[in-house]
């Protein structure tokens, strides 16, 4: 039972040997608190452009909390507070002068439960677009088509764009949410266990979609499913909670490295399924 994790033990290796990596998000010494309770301590890592970064770890290790700090949505639903710094393209998103709505537009998010709005498929996709501008109908049509195509949903719904988004299957709803997020052309897409409510076939579709989307944007995905992390991600961050239930980043590395020969015993145990 030696599960004490101190920051000294964690190793965050720099692995940019074979290619030059541009960090889109740079997290520096991030600590999170719910009220007075510390949930996450001293996380520093970078999210690289055009890469899929998976965040894995046992329940309660703060991985969802971490994800929700990246577009400042955590503070909307609870008394989440942070210390430290998160930079998006070099700009501190917790700066007081920052335009929150713009941050969330640049950093889109997909949730555990598909959450289409109670409106038509078409209106769902253009919701975010309409919130910021009043494009012409032809422009909206174009956005809907490209977004739905990018989300691999176009062929299934193109004849039923006026139908309710809620009448779709769970997997289709999730892809609708992805299309909705893509419609405002984000630079980063955060996915909070996007497949946990879906069946294996729908999961497979989302996973291949992630690989496709990676060509255009940066993805951060929180997942419980280690196979999924191994399948879809280029980089993996392993979070774990210490004996005080404070989440920490244990290890961050290329996914292959993490699953083959992680440097930390904890990581090796977790990816081998020995706890969590």
């Amino acid at each position, binding site marked *: 039972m030696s599960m004490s994790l101190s920051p000294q033990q964690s190793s965050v290796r720099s692995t940019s040997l074979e290619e030059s990596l541009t960090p889109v998000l740079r997290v520096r010494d991030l600590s999170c608190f719910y009220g007075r309770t510390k949930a996450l301590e001293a996380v520093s890592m970078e999210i690289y452009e055009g890469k899929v970064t998976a965040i894995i770890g046992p329940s309660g290790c703060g991985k969802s909390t971490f994800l929700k700090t990246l*577009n400042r*949505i955590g503070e*909307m*639903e609870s008394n989440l507070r942070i210390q430290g710094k998160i930079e998006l393209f070099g700009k501190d998103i917790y700066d007081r002068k920052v335009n929150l*709505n*713009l941050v*969330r*537009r640049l950093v*889109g*998010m997909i*949730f*555990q*439960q598909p*959450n*289409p*709005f*109670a*409106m038509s498929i078409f209106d769902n996709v253009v*919701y*975010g677009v309409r*919130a*910021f501008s009043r494009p012409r109908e032809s422009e909206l049509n174009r956005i809907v088509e490209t977004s739905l195509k990018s989300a691999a949903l176009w062929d299934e719904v193109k004849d039923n764009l006026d139908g*309710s988004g*809620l009448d779709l299957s769970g997997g289709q709803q999730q892809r609708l*949410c992805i299309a*909705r*997020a893509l419609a*405002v052309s984000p630079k980063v897409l955060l996915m909070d266990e996007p497949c946990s409510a879906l069946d294996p076939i729908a999961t497979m579709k989302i996973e291949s979609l992630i690989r496709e989307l990676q060509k255009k944007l940066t993805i951060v995905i929180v997942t419980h499913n280690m196979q999924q992390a191994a399948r879809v991600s280029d980089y993996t961050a392993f979070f774990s909670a210490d004996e005080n239930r404070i989440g920490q980043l244990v290890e961050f590395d290329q996914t292959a490295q993490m699953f083959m020969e992680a440097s930390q015993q904890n990581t090796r145990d977790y990816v081998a399924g020995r706890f969590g």
Partner: protein
Amino acid sequence: MGNFSEQSYRSNRQSFTDTGNVQDLLSHWSDRGFQGLTFVAALITAAVPFWMSALIFQQAQPAIAKFGLSFLWTQDWNVDQNIFGALPYIYGTLVSSAIALVIALPIGVAVAIITSEDVFPSWLQSPIAVVVELIAAIPSVIVGLWGRFILIPALAPLQEFLFGHFKWLPIFNTQPFGPSMLMAGIVLAIMILPTIAAISREVLRAISQDLRNGAFALGSTQWETIWHITLPAAASGIFGGASLALGRALGETMAVTMVIGNVTGIDVSLLSPGNTIPALLANQFSEATDPVHIGALMYLALVLFLVTLTVNALAVVMVRFLTRHA
């Protein structure tokens, strides 16, 4: 750790082998008795409305026989000549309740938004919610007294203003003198406000945070999210709350009686006094002796019964419709 589990294992074993206990559990007489008791209680409860309507219907017979359905569109109410018509009261009931709903619905939903969405800090939210819900605890006779002696004088300038500047509108074209349909509507609005606010609040709170987050994640502001996402998702529930409130307004007696003026007749102007079914019933029951008069009052009660039943039935249908199309 090991010790504890061994102990609990032993005690489990003991209770499983204790045949006396098991036999007690197997004898179902107490279960059956309880089942029977609840069934009878449920039956009695379900029978009460039927029994009530049957009695009212029976008592109304003299009036039904004399006036038939024309009772519903006759405007006279003459106790001396035994001529009775329900239309002014049906009109007054529906109009005063409609005014109440028009006023209370937006305010109630606003209160619900303020107290459920994170617009205000939570130390401000709960006091507001509690105070609004406290309104429901005020006895209606007290609301009526307050309405009669404080609200009506206080709002006299408003009534004068409406008459002075908007008398070209048919609904404001009579000289106000205090009690009026409008005052009844306002008093009713105050009384149904807590119902609308409390139900809408619960409905809004039940909407998953993920739905709101979905809008936030697309760059929506808080108000855009409330207006475009949260409220539409809550529409069916809010509508249900409004129907409950309307049901209460239709049946409210005491407070309305004290501020509506109790004048029989239909006047389109909201500044003129009127009357409602419950108010008339309360006013005339003690003095009614003639079977036809009593019958007419019972007939009115039956009409009120049907009106509230129709409102509630329509509400159920609408809520189902809205839920399906949400």
